[in-house]
């Protein structure tokens, strides 16, 4: 089984978000970048496939040279080889088109991508990639098993979960649940040393159009002060929620 895990290079979840160049660009100054958390759950799940069912695992990122440390981290965690599509990830459709080329050239059976990146939150790349390559698709996936060419997947729905079966090739929009937080792997020294020798192939982008464009960013307006209520007067909270906030 050939598995491809799509890796987004995103600011660490604790990052303070700022913008520059007249609020048109994300300010990377002082920001630590990581593997997108939704992708990291998928990467770990792919490692299990590799160890238990003998799969090969490649990772891919669409981005400039600055994203290579993130791909090396994925290699240190255990991926076999990495691909970087050398272009700026401008919007979801553009990224999906680049990945579609990689998927078609590589003949992957299973593609695991995060359900969304935690930076632009488009939430469209996995589905678009499936549509572009003609693969089956399961979004918000929290569990997957493969037997031969049949996949059984569990996805999160509003208020519960749903199990389905389908055939490979399959694209999965993954999230926590594919593996648990405690299953995530921190690269060890041996992994880091080996990652240096693993292939990281840089390929040039295919020409395609961009459908959407982020023109300007804005931070939420600062919040007013909290209204504190004494723990001895809890009824006051009910009154305020009803009369002032009109929330109940």
């Amino acid at each position, binding site marked *: 089984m050939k598995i491809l895990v799509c890796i987004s290079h995103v600011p660490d979840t604790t990052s303070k978000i700022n913008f520059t160049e007249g609020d048109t660009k994300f300010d990377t100054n002082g920001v630590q970048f990581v593997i997108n958390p939704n992708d990291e759950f998928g990467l770990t799940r792919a490692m299990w496939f590799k160890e238990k069912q003998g799969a090969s695992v490649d990772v891919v990122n669409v981005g400039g040279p600055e994203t290579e440390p993130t791909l090396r981290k994925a290699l240190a965690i255990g991926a076999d080889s990495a691909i970087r599509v050398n272009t700026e990830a401008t919007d979801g459709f553009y990224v999906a088109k680049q990945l579609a080329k990689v998927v078609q050239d590589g003949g992957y059976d299973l593609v695991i991508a995060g359900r969304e990146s935690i930076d632009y939150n488009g939430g469209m790349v996995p589905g678009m990639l499936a549509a572009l390559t003609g693969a089956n698709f399961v979004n918000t996936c929290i569990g997957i098993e493969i037997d031969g060419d049949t996949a059984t997947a569990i996805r999160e729905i509003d*208020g519960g979960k749903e199990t389905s079966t389908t055939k490979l090739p399959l694209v999965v929009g993954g999230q926590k649940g594919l593996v648990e937080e405690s299953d995530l792997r921190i690269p060890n020294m041996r992994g880091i040393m080996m990652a240096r020798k693993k292939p990281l192939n840089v390929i040039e982008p295919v020409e395609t159009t961009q459908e959407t464009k982020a023109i300007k*960013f*804005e931070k*939420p307006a600062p919040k007013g002060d909290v209204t*504190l209520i004494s723990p001895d007067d809890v009824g006051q909270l009910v009154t305020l929620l009803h009369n002032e906030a009109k929330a109940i």
Partner: protein
Amino acid sequence: MSVLVYTESEEGKFKKAAFEVASYAKEVANMLGTTVTAVSINASDSSELGNYGVDKVLEIKNDKLSTFNAKAYAGALQQAAEKEGAKVVVVSSSANSKFLVPLLAVHLHAGYASNVVALPESTAPFTVRRTAFTNKAFSKTEISTEIKIIGLSNNAFGLKEASGAAMAEGFDPSLSDADFALTVTAVDKATDKVSIADAEIVVSGGRGLKGPENWGMIEELADVLGAATACSKPVSDMGWRPHGEHVGQTGKPVASNLYIAVGISGAIQHLAGINSSKVKVVINNDPEAPFFKAADYGIIGDAFEVVPQLIEKLKEFKTNNA
């Protein structure tokens, strides 16, 4: 060239989000000087949609579509959009909508903006305001394709009633076997509980509750309010509560009218995930908890004393306002 809106239903009844996307679509249609066409799939009474500005409903009744199927639903919506010559398609942010829209976007060659929180700022160029960086920022985004798809955030626009009649028309999209390449074998859904996505009010518990055995009062508080229950990341990681309840940056986003956090300190990732909620209340015994900076109302106190009192006061309130 009407505005097309996908109005979701469950067991024949429209979801609240369906009326919200219809209300939104009506305003967009007004901006463009056109009408609204809704697509309903196995809904029993589509005339309700007229109350939210829908002019015409393409009613699909098909047993094969009784269970949600992203590919088949996307195919049906694509055919509806083509039949109507729609230039704008509006959908909700439900799990099912987010599942099918990327497929629809590719098939319609449409640009898609998700998590949109307001009406288009302009229609030429077509720009929308959406959340980015998991609610830590907003992004003004231009959609430059001929057909545009807008994914509206839950609770971002609200309901706008209109007085009109929706003309119903049967619609029978052609579906192929390939559309059903995925077979749903089991659905596990609590029918007696409000889901976080649909909830007006969410009550959420954190590590301050000390253990899963103490969740009774969170559930009781949620019951009194008709709210959904949620939890912080550590609580789901420790297995006190199911993952489906984890709200925050790597969990579910919450955009309820009221969010009540009990024993949650308010890590930056948690606050990002719940930022779109309109009114935020925190109950925590640590006055230094960062949540107090993000909340509208706060009680510094022991949750085990405050919450039972709050439940009593809410019960009194409900009796007096019944």
